[in-house]
């Protein structure tokens, strides 16, 4: 890493210490049960963030990690594994973790559409549902291997999403958003009245099985017994890493530049030869593909799909995660998903009011920090690259 030396001898120690503290903090937060302890921890966390950002340590650690991106990636994967390992027997917490990861996967897709191409999609949960239903139907009635079923979930979401392409391409901004809202409402009604797809009761989804390895059995290694969710978490983590890398590369390429250009100024973009239709379609289909994959995985983990899991309200949560995290920033998605999914789950008191809370959070965000928790930085095609 000789690139960063000239200006900032970015030392990694604060970042490493920060990561260790974050891992411990997340474990504690997931572990504690009593409400006072949860609230106490949240206050401590907020104060710690305020203090470190005031002292400049937070910015410096962030800078060091963006300079050494591969280390950041390794730390995050390591952190995820440590947390999974710690809660190896705790079904509830592990299920919570799968939810976080699948939401990150789905919002990565949403981020492609909204964050980069500027196409608002208020039917995220519907495409998530399409993935889940695809897994249910293919898993129960065909011998298709599960790995392909996951892909099929994504492909189906992209295919059905292409119905929306014509109206989405012909309208701009809010009008395109209205089209997706209509789709989300229609989708739920369609599922409820459709008996072949189980109507309001939904469908069972068979558990995952790969190469003779049954995911719904607990893992026994000697005396150690791991929850069956660990199986799923490992697979989901792998899929998530692949999707993350894909979205990252896309952002740091001419494709990402094209999407930004058409979002920011469609007229100027066409005057420089950009094919608006091609890139909007690419972003919309690819985004739905990722959402569909997340949906298929989610169906397999939970074991069943029903129309009530894929409502318009769920789509709104996905959109608010993107807004909260920092439109277009992939790390922002991780942070925002963790906040939106974990905190209401741990704070029983606010669970009833979670939608109110999300709404308030999004409004405060848009008012006081419209760029999100982690604003998107300027594009660096190859981090650490310097001109000769």
């Amino acid at each position, binding site marked *: 890493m000789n690139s960063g030396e000239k200006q900032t001898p970015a030392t990694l120690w604060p970042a490493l210490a920060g990561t260790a503290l974050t891992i411990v903090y997340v474990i504690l937060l997931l572990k504690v049960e009593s409400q006072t302890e949860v609230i106490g921890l949240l206050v401590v966390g907020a104060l710690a963030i305020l203090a470190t950002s005031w002292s400049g340590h937070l910015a410096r650690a962030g800078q060091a990690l963006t300079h050494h991106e591969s280390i950041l990636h390794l730390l995050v994967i390591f952190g995820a594994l440590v947390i999974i390992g710690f809660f190896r027997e705790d079904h509830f917490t592990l299920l919570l973790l799968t939810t976080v990861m699948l939401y990150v996967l789905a919002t990565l897709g949403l981020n492609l559409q909204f964050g980069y191409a500027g196409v608002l999609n208020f039917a995220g949960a519907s495409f998530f549902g399409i993935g889940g239903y695809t897994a249910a139907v293919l898993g129960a009635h065909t011998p298709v291997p599960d790995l392909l079923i996951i892909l099929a979930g994504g492909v189906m979401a992209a295919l059905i999403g292409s119905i929306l392409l014509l109206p989405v391409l012909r309208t701009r901004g809010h009008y395109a958003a209205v089209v997706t809202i209509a789709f989300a409402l229609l989708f739920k009604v369609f599922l409820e009245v459709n008996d072949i797809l189980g109507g309001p009761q939904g469908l069972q989804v068979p558990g995952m099985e790969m190469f003779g390895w049954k995911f719904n059995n607990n893992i026994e290694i000697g005396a150690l017994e791991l929850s069956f969710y660990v199986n799923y978490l490992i697979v989901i983590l792998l899929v998530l890493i692949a999707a993350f890398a*894909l979205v990252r*590369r*896309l952002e740091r*390429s*001419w*494709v990402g*530049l*094209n999407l*930004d*250009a058409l979002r*920011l*100024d469609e*007229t*100027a*973009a*066409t*005057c*420089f*030869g*950009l*094919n608006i239709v091609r890139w909007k379609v*690419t972003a919309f289909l690819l985004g739905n593909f990722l959402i569909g994959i997340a949906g298929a995985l989610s169906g397999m983990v939970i074991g069943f799909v029903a129309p009530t899991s894929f409502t318009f309200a769920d789509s709104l949560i996905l959109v608010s995660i993107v807004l909260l995290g920092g439109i277009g920033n992939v790390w922002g998605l991780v942070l925002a998903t963790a906040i939106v999914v974990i905190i209401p789950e741990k704070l029983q008191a606010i669970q009833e009011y979670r939608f109110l809370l999300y709404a308030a959070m999004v409004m405060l965000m848009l008012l006081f920090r419209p760029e999100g928790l982690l604003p*998107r930085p*300027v*594009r*660096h*095609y*190859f981090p650490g690259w310097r*001109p000769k």
Partner: protein
Amino acid sequence: MNAARKTKRARAGSPAAARKKKAEAAVMMSAEKLTKRFGGVVALDSLELELRQGEILGLIGPNGSGKTTFFNVVTGIYPANDGHVRFDGADITNASPQSVYHAGIARTFQRSRLSLPLSIFDNIMIGNHARLNQGLWFNLISRAAFKQEFEESFETARELVHIFDAPLADRMFDPVAGLPMIDRRRIEICRALISQPKLLLLDEPSAGMTHEETAQLMDDILEVRGRMEGLSIIIVEHEMGVIERITERCVVLNFGRKIAEGTFKQISNDREVQEAYLGIE
């Protein structure tokens, strides 16, 4: 090499000789009976216009006389109601903005239309669209090949920016949002020039800048043109000093019609032009 340099100097040395030479050059672009109506308003009224290769043509006229509309019709943003636009031997009337760009016409906008959150480099690369590999496989999977194209494009962009402003060339990854107007104009012109167009349309490049800044920018434009053989330019401008200095010929519009044509000296002595501008009865 030597001969080429000599001709360039000869050209720069005597405008009369240059003008004579231009007159012999091929017609680069022409508008024939070009008409654009917005409801009852005739923004362009049977406009006839010809531009030769390597020429700098000034397009002037009072506000609302159809200058920007002309640019928008040529670049395919508005469809023409009647008439033709020919460019480099092909009919490009009502072609899409994309195909106009691919044919070799690049433009700047009256209100600077840069993508403010993006870096200088990103903004310039938007203009380089035609020369970049847009394949998904190339962009996402074969990153080594992508890196090579990226590095080459970076060098080209940096060299171009360097002509306009050397310190700016060291800040290629700064967001455009924090830059002053003159730098934004420079970047906008670089964005138009990076694709090496045959025709550059400049829409009021001096807007929002001081006299000194404008003069500086015009120097840079002339320098770039010296390096890009055969580049033709149409410039819309209200600053008459600019028009006098850099154009070889001017066309004056009023209410969408051409009311005068000639060198700056000729048109500035034209009675109809004076009336249009000053409202002399």
